[in-house]
């Protein structure tokens, strides 16, 4: 049998057992898979001859390849080590590999493990306060510790556990499902992980800095300002959250670019697998929702660190609720959608039926994603907003529950005429749907405003959201079990999996159902009415059972990695998506050929015959590094040290910044420590960013891919546009905050802070000219004039500098008159909003001066795209100023 060319295909030398050599399918490994393939259910690859039929069969199919062999899972690990080493990546057993990897599969595993770590901490905190709630009154904790515990539990679970857990699975599976070699920007992917993980560590640090944040995960104002929450740990909490948001934004840009530009040929958006669809919508929501949270977090940070007066001013409380819940509601769908995608996938696989009403299911998900931004005031029904507004939001809230009805019914009806197998993933998925239905019904109660008037702030809300959110977690656990064989090449212990489910389901319901009966308990109290005691006690028992079941899971999965039965490529009958057509675990480059759905079903094309590109060279996508685009196809890179370095730098800098409160550093040694950390962190971050830009890193290439609707927008450009979209929301939230506060104070009565608009006008001209300079730089690059490029870039830098100097002079004069940041709400909004814009200008200038130095050495003449992308950013910054100038100087 021919062992064809491509060294990129992992073969383990075990040709005898490689599939396709003699036409037989791989014998099932023991009864390792829960569903032994039926007689014709195996997967054949006919190697070498490029032919072979793809049969649409009952549970099996032949995947056509024209040039590769698919190795046997059992020896994959050994081959993996050598193979990875060829690509510059140390083997799995070395720590270094995990620190420098940029491969999506490794990062997926890192996310999964890190998120389970935070689950453990958040869960232990919960068990502590459930013990506290055994009886009314203080038992084992003081009030401050209790408030800190409930706040930390919420923050850890929502931010540092549940979404990253979903994204661990997404990182691993999405490129496999769409046929990509990796995400669009592998180093940014690694950067996302490290900033996420280190932001979580930073949050844990806050416990040791005078106590963590104690105002609830919702951080209502003005409880959140130093006057009421003075500890440094609270600063650290908000900064950790800001760092986390940076991670999320980078991740969303990455996924959006990947999903729009790196799909296999023939895989249109409509034909995406359900998990991929759910992640696509999740990252869209994330991009916009987290930008708003960033605005809220920056405003809160500014109040805490710089002493601005947003939250203390009249209307500040309500401003915070608007900002927070505009993020908060999409957030709960961000949390739930990946689970929904997993429910759809596992229902299809384990019932052996295609999803009923698939296109309506997708339409419902899209509807919910859009509507999620239109319901936020249902968290504010009691804040004194007027009846008309309440009616609108009641209507939109009820409207958003309806697509969920359709989706749940679709899942249930998929079972009809199916062959339902109660494997561990399906048990969890089915259980998740069941729990979500209960949670959803109780949510309708909250949507009826008249009932919300009573249920607000009580344990009804707590029980409701735990049912829906942890119902989502249930489905995510299903996903973990479902893809565990793929990720590790081993099967988990099926008996322990079912024991886990039994304990989990019993514990879950014992914990949360009694809370409906105890709904009269106010939230976040430890002193409650005697009559609720029995319910709280049952809940505490349930919590411990739930926790024990997790212990079973951790044991099962950990031991199975080393001692589980080796798993097939496809241990699940009726699974359809591409990740099941490759070995478990997949080799570094994922596929034996280029995946293509062009003829209606999955096939792998010979890599060397990458079709339809220019003479001899493929367009190499870079990751922001220095590889020029016209080089011939280069080996993709898989490792980089810089993401970790940047993450560490940011961690240290934010740790340091926490010591700056209300305009001054903390006193004594603490203050010195924080200052030192800030300086060190900034230097490390800056240096690492330069290092990252200078690094020669080759990203994944997709010679033929589905691109709609961004066919002519190349990856980097699409990434920049996505980032700018989130920046629009960021500024929108800041401007909205200004408008809101101004309305509350009386629009006409509010005097603009600057006395006359002339400095602002000058700044406008400076910026407009600098935009023109960037255009000139682009023209010069196209005309091959390196001096022109350098001059124009320097002009941009210089005009930006002039802008900032002018602004500094203006601010100095205002400070002299006593119009400081903390003076009043007018100055707070002025300085913070224009200051945020100024920070954007500063960052642009850093880019400009870096590019200037590169231009003096002749860069950008062959490939002027970086200048174009920089131009996009710079023009955006200018356009924002065109809004800020009239708002703050003239009106």
């Amino acid at each position, binding site marked *: 049998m021919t062992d064809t060319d491509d060294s990129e295909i992992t073969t383990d030398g075990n040709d005898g057992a490689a599939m396709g050599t003699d036409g037989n399918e791989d014998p099932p490994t023991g009864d390792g898979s829960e569903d032994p393939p039926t007689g014709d259910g195996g997967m054949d690859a006919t190697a070498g001859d490029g032919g072979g039929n793809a049969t649409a069969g009952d549970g099996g*199919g032949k995947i056509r390849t024209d040039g590769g062999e698919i190795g046997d899972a059992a020896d994959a690990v050994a081959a993996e080590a050598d193979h990875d080493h060829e690509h510059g990546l140390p083997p799995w057993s070395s720590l270094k590999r995990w620190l420098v990897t940029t491969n999506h599969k490794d990062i997926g595993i890192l996310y999964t493990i890190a998120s389970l770590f935070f689950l453990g901490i958040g869960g232990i905190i919960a068990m502590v306060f459930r013990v506290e709630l055994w009886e009314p009154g203080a038992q084992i904790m003081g009030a401050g510790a209790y408030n800190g515990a409930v706040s930390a539990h919420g923050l850890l679970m929502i931010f540092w556990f549940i979404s990253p857990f979903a994204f661990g699975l997404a990182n691993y599976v999405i490129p496999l499902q769409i046929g990509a070699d990796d995400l669009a920007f592998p180093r940014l992917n690694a950067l996302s992980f490290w900033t996420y993980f280190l932001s979580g560590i930073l949050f844990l640090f806050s416990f040791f800095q005078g106590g963590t944040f104690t105002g609830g995960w919702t951080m209502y104002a003005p409880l959140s300002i130093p006057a009421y929450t003075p500890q440094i740990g609270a600063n650290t909490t908000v900064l950790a959250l800001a760092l986390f948001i940076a991670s999320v934004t980078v991740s969303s840009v990455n996924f959006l670019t990947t999903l729009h530009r790196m799909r296999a040929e023939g895989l249109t958006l409509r034909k995406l697998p*359900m998990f991929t669809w759910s992640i696509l919508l999740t990252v869209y929501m994330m991009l916009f929702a987290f930008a708003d949270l960033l605005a809220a977090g920056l405003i809160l940070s500014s109040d805490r660190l710089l002493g601005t007066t947003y939250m203390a001013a009249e209307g500040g*409380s309500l401003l915070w609720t608007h900002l927070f819940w505009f993020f908060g509601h999409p957030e709960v769908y961000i949390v739930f959608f990946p689970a929904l995608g997993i429910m759809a996938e596992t229902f299809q696989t384990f019932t052996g039926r295609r999803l009923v009403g698939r296109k309506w299911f997708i339409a419902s998900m899209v509807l919910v994603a859009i509507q999620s931004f239109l319901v936020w005031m249902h968290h504010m029904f009691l804040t004194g907003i007027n009846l008309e507004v309440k009616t609108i939001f*009641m209507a939109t809230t*009820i409207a958003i529950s309806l697509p969920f009805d*359709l989706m749940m019914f*679709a899942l249930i009806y998929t079972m009809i005429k199916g062959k339902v197998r109660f494997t561990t993933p399906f048990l969890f998925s089915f259980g998740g749907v069941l729990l979500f239905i209960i949670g959803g019904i109780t949510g309708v109660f909250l949507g009826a405003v008249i009932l919300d008037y009573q249920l607000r702030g009580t344990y009804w809300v707590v029980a409701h959201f735990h049912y829906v959110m942890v119902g989502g977690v249930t489905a995510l656990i299903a996903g973990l079990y479902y893809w565990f064989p793929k990720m590790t090449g081993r099967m988990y212990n099926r008996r322990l999996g079912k024991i886990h489910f039994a304990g989990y389901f019993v514990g879950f319901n014992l914990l949360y159902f009694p809370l409906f009966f105890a709904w009269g308990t106010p*939230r976040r109290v430890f002193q409650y009415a005697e009559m609720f005691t029995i319910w709280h006690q049952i809940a505490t028992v349930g919590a411990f059972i739930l926790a024990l079941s997790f212990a079973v899971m951790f044991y099962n999965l950990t031991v199975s990695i080393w001692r589980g039965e080796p798993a097939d490529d496809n241990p699940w009958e009726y699974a359809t998506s591409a990740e099941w057509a490759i070995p478990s675990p997949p080799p570094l480059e994922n596929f034996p050929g280029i995946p293509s759905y062009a003829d209606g079903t999955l096939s792998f094309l010979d890599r060397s015959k990458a079709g339809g590109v220019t003479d001899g060279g493929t367009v190499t996508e870079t990751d922001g590094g220095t590889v020029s685009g016209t080089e011939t196809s280069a080996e993709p890179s898989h490792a980089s040290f810089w993401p970790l370095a940047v993450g560490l730098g940011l961690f240290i800098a934010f740790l340091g910044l926490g010591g700056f409160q209300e305009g001054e550093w903390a006193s004594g040694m603490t203050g010195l420590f924080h200052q030192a950390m800030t300086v060190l962190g900034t230097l490390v971050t800056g240096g690492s960013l330069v290092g990252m830009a200078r690094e020669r890193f080759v990203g994944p290439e997709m010679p033929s891919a589905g691109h709609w609707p961004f066919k002519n927008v190349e990856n980097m450009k699409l990434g920049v546009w996505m980032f700018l979209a989130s920046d629009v929301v960021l500024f929108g939230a800041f401007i909205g905050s200004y408008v809101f506060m101004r309305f509350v104070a009386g629009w006409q009565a509010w005097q603009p802070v600057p006395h006359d608009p002339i400095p602002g006008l000058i700044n406008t001209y400076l910026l407009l000219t600098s935009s023109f300079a960037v255009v000139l730089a682009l023209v010069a690059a196209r005309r091959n004039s390196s001096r022109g490029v350098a001059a124009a870039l320097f002009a941009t830098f210089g005009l930006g500098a002039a802008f900032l100097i002018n602004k500094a002079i203006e601010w100095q004069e205002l400070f002299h008159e006593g119009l400081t940041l903390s003076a009043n709400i007018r100055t707070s909004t002025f300085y913070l909003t224009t200051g945020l814009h100024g920070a954007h200008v500063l960052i642009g200038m850093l880019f400009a001066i870096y590019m200037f130095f590169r231009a003096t050495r002749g860069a950008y003449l062959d490939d002027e795209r970086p200048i174009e992308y920089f131009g996009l950013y710079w023009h955006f910054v200018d356009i924002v100023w065109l809004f800020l100038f009239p708002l703050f100087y003239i009106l």
Partner: protein
Amino acid sequence: MAVVSPRESPAARRLFHPISTRIVPLPYLGIGLFWQKKLSKRDSRASVNCWARRRTPSLPGETTKYNVAVTIHYILVTMFPMFATLVGSFAFPTPAAVKPPSVIFNEIFQVFVVLGTLVGIVVIGYMLWKAYEYRAGDGKGEGMDVDRPSLGELPTGGDGGRKLFLSFGLSTIIVVSLIIWTYGALLTVESGPPAAETEGEPVEITVTGFQFAWQFEYENGHTTTGTMRVPADRPVKLHVTSDDVFHNFGIPGMSLKADAIPGQTTETWFVAEEPGTHTAQCYELCGSGHSYMTAQVIVMEPSEYEEWYESTQNETAS
């Protein structure tokens, strides 16, 4: 927050008018008809007048089930006017019997609980039954000749959309009707205490929350902290605000709750039907004393209340 009482609100009257309640279900009927035509067209190539008829049933018994489902759908839709009119009369009681918000809340809550439990049992029961019925090994699905998913295929949906639409339509009708019903009650509560002639002049109290207690100020300027005295059988109007952070004032026994936001005032009202003592609590995390931020609400006989109120007036006057 000036809202016209529903008895005077022309818009509300129009909503529950006998004619409008017959017009409202028409869109549902229209949608149902449209889908039936569309689905039956798909089934049979040359459909002439198929409404509730399928040319090619796939399994014995399917047609009957389908027809039964359609019939139920139509019955519910045509009964909507009756349902709505019934509800309308409930939401707009005759002037003599104004229900206090606590009674309204309890009634609505109980209906929701009953309906919610019913729906939950039906849906979850159905789910469990189907999972059992079609289990692998020896379930109904084993012998069926159904096209099953295969590895590497491009996703397409399964069939069975008809059931999906019926269920979806039914759940929509239930949920939307429920909300419209509660909306009437919301209007009643939002319109504030009933007019003075029917129940007596409302007692107005300003409630101010601060870390970590409640202060009450009466119309005559008298202030107490930690205890609120109100008369039975008379509406009490509360103006709630905060001195420092975000609190929430709630009296569970009276089904009353209002956010206490610094810098603004929210309004709510209640009627206590019998004398007694209730506890008010704080329902928004406000700091380390949040769990203990309670107050007593003493409902007194009207005459006793008058005496007490007079005595406070003497104090403040002197």
